[in-house]
């Protein structure tokens, strides 16, 4: 006999963020004889507002600032991940649905699995970062006379990151390779995502590569083969030079 349906599970599992269509009856949304549309309704993104860290502790911020500076460093080409607001971006991600793994299948049992079977940890990202950063600082302390990751030289930091990336560092509470894959991905996201999420400050990531951002009509440029277009990047919230409303 199948287990009875758990209504709380259904209602809480992965409800799409930002869904704006209201359910106005006790039953399903039933649509007939019309194309549903309501003026002003839009499934807009959740804009991140500046502020203090909501999830990360000071020690975690210190680690992330330092580690992100090794993954995408500041150099003569421009700001790196830290300067572009990567840690703040990550903080807001971990404090929200991504950090909770709200849309992921988190049910047990949890087995290690083959690499081709993907992520199998019981931890959602917020938990994984918390456990991993503590484990990495301990690993550094054991290897480098009680120093934390953020206190090491750049060279030593790179060695530690490579050991984690390869899985040579045994972090005990988390799988090193899984954590590194997630961390590198989130760092790149913080560098290249739309600034409304708190990263890619001043569109530094887009300026590095020449990506024009949230534009939508390139028809005048389709046949301009081989031409540098010099289009200033635009974000969803606009760009400097636009008149305030």
């Amino acid at each position: 006999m199948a287990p009875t349906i758990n209504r709380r599970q259904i209602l809480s599992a992965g409800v799409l963020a930002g869904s704006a269509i209201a359910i106005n009856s006790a039953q399903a949304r039933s649509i007939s004889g019309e194309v549903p549309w309501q003026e002003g309704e839009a499934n807009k993104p959740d804009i991140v507002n500046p502020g203090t860290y909501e999830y990360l502790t000071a020690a975690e911020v210190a680690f992330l600032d330092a580690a992100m500076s090794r993954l995408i460093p500041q150099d003569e080409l421009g700001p790196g991940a830290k300067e572009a607001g990567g840690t703040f971006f990550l903080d807001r991600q971990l404090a929200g649905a991504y950090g909770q793994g709200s849309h992921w299948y988190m049910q047990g049992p949890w087995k290690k699995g083959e690499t081709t079977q993907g992520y199998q940890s019981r931890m959602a990202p917020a938990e994984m970062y918390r456990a991993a950063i503590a484990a990495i600082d301990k690993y550094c302390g054991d290897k480098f006379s009680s120093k934390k990751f953020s206190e090491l030289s750049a060279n030593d930091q790179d060695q530690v990151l490579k050991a984690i990336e390869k899985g040579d560092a045994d972090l005990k509470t988390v799988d090193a390779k899984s954590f590194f894959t997630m961390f590198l991905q989130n760092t790149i996201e913080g560098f290249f995502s739309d600034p409304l999420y708190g990263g890619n400050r001043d569109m530094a990531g887009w300026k590095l590569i020449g990506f024009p951002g949230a534009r939508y009509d390139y028809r005048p440029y389709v046949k301009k083969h081989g031409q540098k277009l010099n289009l200033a990047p635009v974000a969803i919230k606009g760009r400097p030079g636009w008149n305030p409303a």
Partner: protein
Amino acid sequence: MAKNTAKKLPAVDCVLVGFGWTGAILGQELTDAGLNVVAIERGSWRDASTDFAVTFAQDELRYMWRKALFEEPARETLTFRNAPSEEALPMRHLGSFLPATGVGGAGIHWNGQTWRFLPSDFVARSHNEQRYGKLPDDMTVQDWGVTYDELEPHYDKFEYLCGISGKAGNLKGQIQEGGNPFEGPRAREYPNPPLDMVYGPTLFEAAAKATGHKPFTCPAANMSRPYTNPLGVQLGPCTYCGFCEKFGCGNYSKSSAQTTILPVLMRKKNFELRTECNVLKVLKDDSAKRATGVVYIDEQGEEWEQPAEMVILCAFAHHNPHLMMLSNIGRIYDPQTGQGLIGKNYAYQIVSGVDVFFDDKILNPFVGAGALGVGVDEYNGDNFDHSGLGFIGGGYLACWNTNGRPIEHHPTPKDTPKWGAQWKKAVAKNYLTTATISTHGAVMSHRTNYLDLDPTYRNVYGQPLLRLTFDYTDNEHKMSDYLTERATDIAKAMKAREIHPKKRTGHYDIVPYQTTHNTGGAIMGADPKSSAVNRYLQSWDLHNLFVMGSCVFPQNPGYNPTGTVGALTYWAAHAIRTQYLKNPGPLVQS
């Protein structure tokens, strides 16, 4: 044991399970035939103005990486293993493929690459055995039971519904300059001319010609000009925004249910859509020869029974076989005994590519559309002599220019570190000046590539998850390596600074995105002993149950599936309207 406590609703003529491309096509066709039709969709209503307006659609993080439009594994997913000897584990994140949820389904976030299969694809077993001899025992490739010629008018109908932009390569047997010379014959031109082309694919085109190939602009469901389709629905011209695949089109210029059918269908009095309702089961009568309706659960957790004269499964590829298993329709396939047909012959796609790095040519990758590219078809299907090569099947090669979204697209040359100062320099140097040639290979069916039910893991409704067992075989690896080598030949002729061929190696990996071209599990055929549905996509078990989508493909050829999914849906709709409704019963005698 608790009895069925679902509240019974008034009966309708037809209930559609799922409301993506096939649900919209059938909703339109069957309401035209005078039926009362109800569509039941687990996700929500979606439309451009509300869900992907041009003011916020360009959000790579939200739509591609946080997967806002896609199926949520928290509610429904599958378990996966490469071989029957392993334990299947849940696909906890989306990766390899991106099923949708919501009205319009994956038709909202697809690329729009719209192909016809080759005439020989539909008779893959008999054609290949005739030419090359007996296929390996474990290769369970089958003929489809329908021919290209029978489907031609229905391919045409879908292409004109969508407004496909392209150039015909074979008009009634006459090969046309500028089109795909290998395609099957078509009755008339595409409804819209090919898209204007950006720089990178034109460099591929020149190199392809120089190496003896016949390149053509790939057929696209991105509009090359404003278009009004036969239903009177209007689409706008594509603006090459580069937020196409994995995104909804805010411009009404990518074909989808929303942009081609729903403005007409939603206004009909004999059509009703229920959203946020998940079908749990198809019900059968006591004789188990007819479906009597479906049971679904709404967002409040209430269960409802919707009785219907016809039930049509219109959910995504693997969800239809899953529902059949949960409803005890047919028998679940067992690779040990070879018995059972539901879940048999799951297939996918094998893809690879060659990166081409220029120093001096600015390609502007962000000027893109989902189906913007130039292709060659010399190595697809049986378009070339396979003697001595050790594989059957093939795929197209194409230089696509779909996007320059930086989280996804930041190519670096071979052996560049994955992070750090050198990585950053390589990304900055190569972003504007790199192209890629992609290979899009077929996957043949195999005895141990299949779907069944997982013994351990359950979805949010407490039902067993679907279990996927799948890996590439020698056939796929040899074929894909061959395609990568042919792509490398053309890449060399592009005279770049350097090229990096990237063959597909090792086991099938569910983690990196590849394609959302899942097929099989409810395969069509001429014989009920070897197929789940007949040539009209009618269940052999329950004559008033029809099953749509790529789950009916007996194996997967070397092209994107949607063109053929659309054609088969119109073909089935035609059979229902002209034969089934007049005389309900099996359309093919078994």
